[in-house]
Structure formats: structure tokens, C-alpha cells
């Protein structure tokens, strides 16, 4: 049996601000992981990544990050993505402000 595909989101850094952004199902970019498109199919994931990479004037360094589905949308599975989704732990900066 093929291994089930681990869900992903497309994430990148914003060209102007350098902060973390995610691709939504409606082809927009959001700063909130919960609003990202949860991708559960490998072929679809590659297409979504291509879409991100075709926007070099909006995003930098797009990649697929592992997530798991949660009650309010995708949630990080690895601590690195958890930090990217929130911000640094020494100050309430990044996405912790104004959330």
C-alpha cells in the first residue's frame, strides 16, 4: 500500500518585508497559517508550488512545509514551522503582535 501523503502548505517569505506567508486555496497569500490551503495530494502540491515559484516578485524561497489538519486550519508539525507561524520566543514580535 502506498504511504499516505503527509499534508503540506506552500509557504515562503514576502519579498518586501521578509516575513512568513502562506498560499491560500484562492491563490492569494496570507500571513496566517490557519488560512493556508491544506494540500493532501502530492501532484496538487507540486502544481501549487509551481504557482508560488512563478511569482518571484512577490515571494522568496517558496517550499512545501509539513502540517496537520486542525480544527481551525492547518497546524505545524515541526517546531521550526511553529516558530515561523508565530514569531520569536524572546519578544512578542512577528505574528504574535496584532493577532
Amino acid at each position, binding site marked *: 500500500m502506498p504511504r499516505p501523503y503527509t499534508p503540506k502548505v506552500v509557504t515562503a517569505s514576502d519579498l518586501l*518585508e521578509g516575513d512568513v506567508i502562506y498560499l491560500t486555496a484562492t491563490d492569494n497569500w496570507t500571513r496566517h497559517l490557519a488560512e493556508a490551503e491544506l494540500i493532501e495530494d502530492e501532484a496538487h502540491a507540486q502544481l501549487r508550488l509551481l504557482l508560488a515559484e512563478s511569482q518571484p516578485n512577490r515571494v522568496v524561497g517558496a517550499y512545501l512545509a509539513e502540517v496537520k489538519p486542525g480544527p481551525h486550519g492547518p497546524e505545524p508539525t515541526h*517546531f521550526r514551522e511553529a516558530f515561523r507561524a508565530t514569531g520569536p*520566543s*524572546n519578544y512578542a514580535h512577528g505574528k504574535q503582535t496584532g493577532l
Partner: protein
Amino acid sequence: MYSYSDFDRAFLAERNAQFRAQVDRRLKGHLTEDEFKPLRLMNGVYLQLHAYMLRVAIPYGTLNAAQMRQLALLAEKWDKGYGHFTTRQNIQYNWPKLPDIPDMLDALGEVGLHAIQTSGNTIRNTTADHFAGAAADEIADPRPLAELIRQWSTDHPEFQFLGRKFKIAITGSPADRAVTAAHDIGLRIVEKDGELGLKVLVGGGLGRTPMIGQVLRDFLPRADLLPYLEAALSTYNLLGRRDNKYKARIKITVHENGIEEIRRLVEARFLETRAEFSGEDQRLLGQIETHFAPPAFRGGNTEAYDTAYAADPVFRAWADTNLAAHRRADHTIVSISLKTPGQTPGDATAEQMRAMAELAERYGYDELRISHEQNVILPHVHKSDLPQLHATLKQHGLATANIGLISDIIACPGMDYCALATARSIPIAQEIATRFEELKLEHDIGPMKIKISGCINACGHHHVGHIGILGLDRAGVENYQITLGGDAGPDAVIGSRAGPGFPAEEIVPAIERLVRAYLDLREDPGESFLSTYRRLGDTPFKSALYDAADRTKAA
């Protein structure tokens, strides 16, 4: 201190204008990220975990008040009100926006600061003893030579695309506060038969293959410095590996070819380079030296100091830890700690930077230094000014009395900011400092250097910490490995790994067990952790880490 000539200013303005145009082309989509990345890195602009980061060089760690104020201005105007001082005598801004960076660089240029060669495979900011020009134990001020190296290496056409980054450190004191043995080239000013020269070390470095530098030349006449460096760099440029980034530093070149072969090649090349130097560099050095003349030290008695020392225990505790011997008996070197327990090591707010600038102007002959230990130094203060200075420091949260103690921790940005990190460093430093503050054991423990890196690159110098902590990712969980017995001093030693790492919630208790074991094992309160470790070896310390009944699990 060195002040820019018209040539320097014009060069900087031109470089900044070029970069402004490059940013503009990137924003308009005329440059791809692949094209832009090397250009931004050449100007100190990284893309980190949450934002861009701008790294500004503080040449040999020396600043004046106007420069410090400008650093504060950048923090306030284009960042989040603070800056992070690093082990490489740089300051990093963690939140700049790309379109603002050209303005930030122009603002830096106004006070003779820049971000050139703070990244890339070039000769980086030459670091120096932070007590340079002031320390009682110094043979000579190393900064004129550091400035000479800066002028020679900045935009040097042959060395813009080396196999890998290249870091030079220089000390003028046998105490070596610049960790020269952990640099690609380490320079130590020495004296032989009344003549000043340099002992040249090569092939030191930390990172994934830590190595202590070896002696390339025991005594190099001072006048031969640039031709000799040029010979060493060009030997490395030819011989160094370019096939594998992890084997590209000069430490690997030295390791693979042997120090004798490297010496033979460098000395042979040196015969050619020396012939090419016409003496212009020595004329330049003479000119540079006039910029580093000591200030006109004021006289006067030190009674105010003696009175405060006798009367005020808080002042006394601070004076006992944060002052160092100045070459004049009526002056002292003040270390301002950026390590208040619970704070991020090396961070200063804009308001604190301005306060330090003000103090430097009022009491410190307009001089400031940044130490590789991420603190700020006022190198020349008359002792009678100390009580007022201390009172002002207190008002700004800058009077922590912990220099050289367990809470004076070096920590790299780690996974709170750094895109390469495998774990966080800052919270570990905060927790250790806070814990020992609670225990009130810090002064009893005495000299202790804890150094923390968030990945194998070792920016936090963990290999040369008495206790080193390396953060790793073990199956998706932050895990911390301990090294013991490292030393960053003149006889530098790479620490050895104690054993399996600890998960984040167990690292502070592990450090506490280690320290309590030391307190039990030392012969008397005068025996430091490092001396005790050297006397007894690692067995009792490993036992404290791993055999204790109260510990649960190690990964």
C-alpha cells in the same frame, strides 16, 4: 579613533547608491532572487526566519558616541527599537524591510559605518581585543593594524571570491581577549629584543570541524604584516578546496596539507609579495596611528570612588565584577553588561544605546567598544566618575554586575531568528541566567563561561565555553548537547562532548547539577570551574550529568 577621509566617504556613498539601484531593480522584478541574493549578501542583508536581517560591521569593535546614537536611530526608525550585538563585533537588526535598507545604509554612511563584507566569501570584519588601547596588560594597541587590514581588505580585488569566508582577529595583549586561536588567521602582538612584531596563527575556526589555530610564524616584523597576509591569503585562494563548502575553510587546507607545507608555500609567496609592497602601506599605517593616539587623560584624585566603594554594597559588587585594570592607575575599564538575567544576551534598546553614548561623551573620552562577549565597554573612565556613571547605568537597566560570571552568557540568535538553526539558544540563556539569579549562587561560583549555539555552525562559540551548549534537532524535538572544558583564552582548548543531549526542559537542571558538582568538588572557593575540571577530568562531571537520581531521561 579613525575618521573617514573624503575617499572613504565617496567610496561608501557610491557603494550605497549601487545597492539602492539593485534593490530597486529587485523590487521592480528586473532581478531574480538568484541574481539579487549575492548582491544583498555583499551588503550585509540576509533573509532570516521572520524577516530580513541587516548586519553592520563595527570595525575592531570601536565606536564613538555619534556612531552609537546612529545605531540607536536605525533601531528606532527602521527596526523594532533594539539591536543585537554579536560575537563578531557586529550589530544585527532583525526586522528591516527591504525597501528601507538603502536608507539605513545611507544613515550608517553618515557616521562612517557600513555593512560591506559582513557576509560572503570575503575577508570579514577584523575583530580585536575589546580592551584595546586601554588594558594594563597590553603590549601595544592592535587597532591601527586592524584598521590597516580593513583598508587593505575592503574591496581587495583578489579576495572578493575566496573559497569561503575569512576571519582575522588581533590582540595586543598576552591575555588574548579576542579568541585569536579560533580564527582563520589570529594575530598576537609580541615583543622581541625591543622590537614589536606579530605571532601569526593560522587555521583556527569553530563550526562543524572546530580547530585551534597553529603557529605559522613566531615573529613577523610589524612592517611585513600586509605582504605576509597577502601571501597567506593568496596561498589559501589557490590551494583551498572549492569542491565542498564544508572543506573550504583554511583550517581544512592547513589540516590536509600540514602546517609545514603551508608555511613553505606562504613564505615562498611572501618573498614575492614583499617585493611588491613599496612602503606605501607603512606611510598609511603611520597616518592611521595618529588617529589612535590615546585621549588626553585627566588627572585628579579617586576619593569619590573609594568613598562609594566603602559605603555602597551594590556599587562595590558592580565594581568588583565589571571593572578591569587600565594602564593608568587613576582610570579603569568599564564593562556594561547586556546580560541582565532574563534578557536576550547582546540586545540593547535604542534608549540604552543613547544612554551609553551619553556616558561615553560625559565620562569616557567619546569611546565605546563592543566585546565579542556581547557587552559594551567604556575603555577609559576616571575612577572618580564611577559613582555617577553607575547611578546612570542603573536608571537604564545597564548596571548588572555579572561580567565573567555564569549569567554572562554568549548566545547566538538560534531558531528565534536564524534560518540555519536547528534549535533555539536565546531562551536557554535566559532560563540559565534566571535560575542562577534565583539561587543567588553566581558570585560563589566565580569565573564561568557558558556559550550557546543554535546549530553546528557554532556562532555562539560553544566549543570554547567552559560549558558549551549546542542546540540540535533530534527527531523533531529541540535537544541540547553539552561540551565541557573549552577555553577561549591564550591557550585555547576545544571542549569535549559530555555525552547524549538533553531535551529543552532538562537542560537547565542538567547545568545546575554540573555546577553543584563543581561546588562540591573544588578545593577551595579560589579554584574555578575550569581548573577543577582540568584537575579531575570529566568523570565526576559526567556522573553529575547522567547518574543523578533526580533526572528522568536523556535523548
